[in-house]
């Protein structure tokens, strides 16, 4: 038991949450991270889906890693990921239909999410299933963290609500002349908000700065 939660394994899990964050440090999986962050609900569902798919894909690839011929490994990885994404997409359609409509093509795009390919190539092909599971969980949660931060600012400033609970209308803030900034829910501001998060993180942690 103590071996399962050794210091190294804890780092495998916790590093992606901060110093090797997939989105802000490794620059992976930007496409969907920006596209689904107009509201907190789709961002939350997307983060959860990617975490689950990444953890399971990592485990499956790690179990198969010694049997996959090197030349066709990318196609094998893609097919396994595509199968998992199809399952998640069907589950979303069955139990959370309106969120799956909101996410539209971006659920399917988890297949080509670079985080998945990156982690499968760099970690799962070389490590055992348990470490790979932790790595997948850590990276998925690191991704979800950025998604939720970006979505939080965009939804509060852009639509004046949190998880669809509209506090601007609730407290009649319009009467005091408060206006929502409609630009925040449009695509360009996702990039700017994400840029500002990177700015903040790198100002705090000087090791991450580029020369």
């Amino acid at each position, binding site marked *: 038991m103590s071996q399962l939660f050794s210091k190294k394994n804890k780092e495998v899990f916790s590093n992606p949450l901060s110093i090797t964050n997939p989105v*802000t440090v490794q*620059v*992976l*999986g*930007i*496409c*969907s991270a*920006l*596209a689904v962050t107009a509201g907190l609900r789709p961002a939350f569902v997307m983060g959860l889906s990617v975490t689950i798919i990444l953890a399971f894909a990592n485990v499956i690839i790690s179990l198969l890693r010694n049997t996959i011929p090197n030349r066709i490994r*990318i*196609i094998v990885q*893609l*097919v396994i990921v*595509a*199968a998992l*994404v*199809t399952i998640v*997409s*069907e589950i979303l359609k069955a139990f959370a239909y309106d969120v799956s409509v909101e996410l*539209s*093509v971006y659920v*399917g*795009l988890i*297949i*080509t*999410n*670079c985080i998945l*390919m990156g982690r499968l190539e760099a970690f799962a092909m070389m490590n055992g299933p348990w470490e790979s599971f932790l790595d997948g969980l850590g990276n998925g949660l690191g991704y979800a963290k950025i998604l939720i931060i970006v979505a939080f600012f965009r939804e509060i400033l852009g639509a004046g609500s949190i998880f669809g609970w509209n506090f601007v209308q609730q407290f009649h803030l319009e009467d005091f002349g408060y206006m929502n900034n409609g630009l925040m829910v*449009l*695509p*360009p*501001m*996702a*990039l*700017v908000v*994400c*840029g*500002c998060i*990177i*700015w*903040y993180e*790198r*100002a705090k942690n000087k090791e991450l*700065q*580029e*020369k």
Partner: protein
Amino acid sequence: MEQLLSLFVKSIFVDNMVFAFFLGMCSYLAVSKNVKTSLGLGLAVTFVLVVTLPVNYYLFGFLKANGLEYLSFILFIAVIAGIVQLVEMVVERFSPSLYASLGIFLPLIAVNCAIMGASLFMQQKYGGDVHDGVSAVVYGLGSGIGWLLAIVGLAAIREKMQYSNVPAPLKGLGITFITVGLMAMAFMCFSGLKI
């Protein structure tokens, strides 16, 4: 004909792959350091899009006729991976110089979200804007050119930006994000454009 032209212009400017849907962002940010390589990658992406979309269009029609739509993800990604492999072999055989200049980017196109994204948008537009093989080709060409414009534009700005004094924490990735955001804002003025 008018419909095709409208679809073409719309897919380049209004529904730009990068600025409206953030597709192909990973390679977009990683490769846009100089104009020459980004032009090569842009052309390769356009070419793969033009070849893949009609193939995926007919395959999706076949799936739809048999009620197997849920298999579309696996089928699309298999077709894309196969076609990228094929394009790689053809380019290597007939134009070794182009092959050498594209290098690693050619196989990486298989996991470029722009290709998969265009296929999935095509699936949404099936029977509407994209209703036969020709319109699928036009949609692929337009999306590809839109992506090409975006990456070459960003590469040109980044080449110039090397000489400017950016605050240390913003250097590299941070300022690139904000630049793309500003470019996206500029592209928003095309929204509502109709022919």
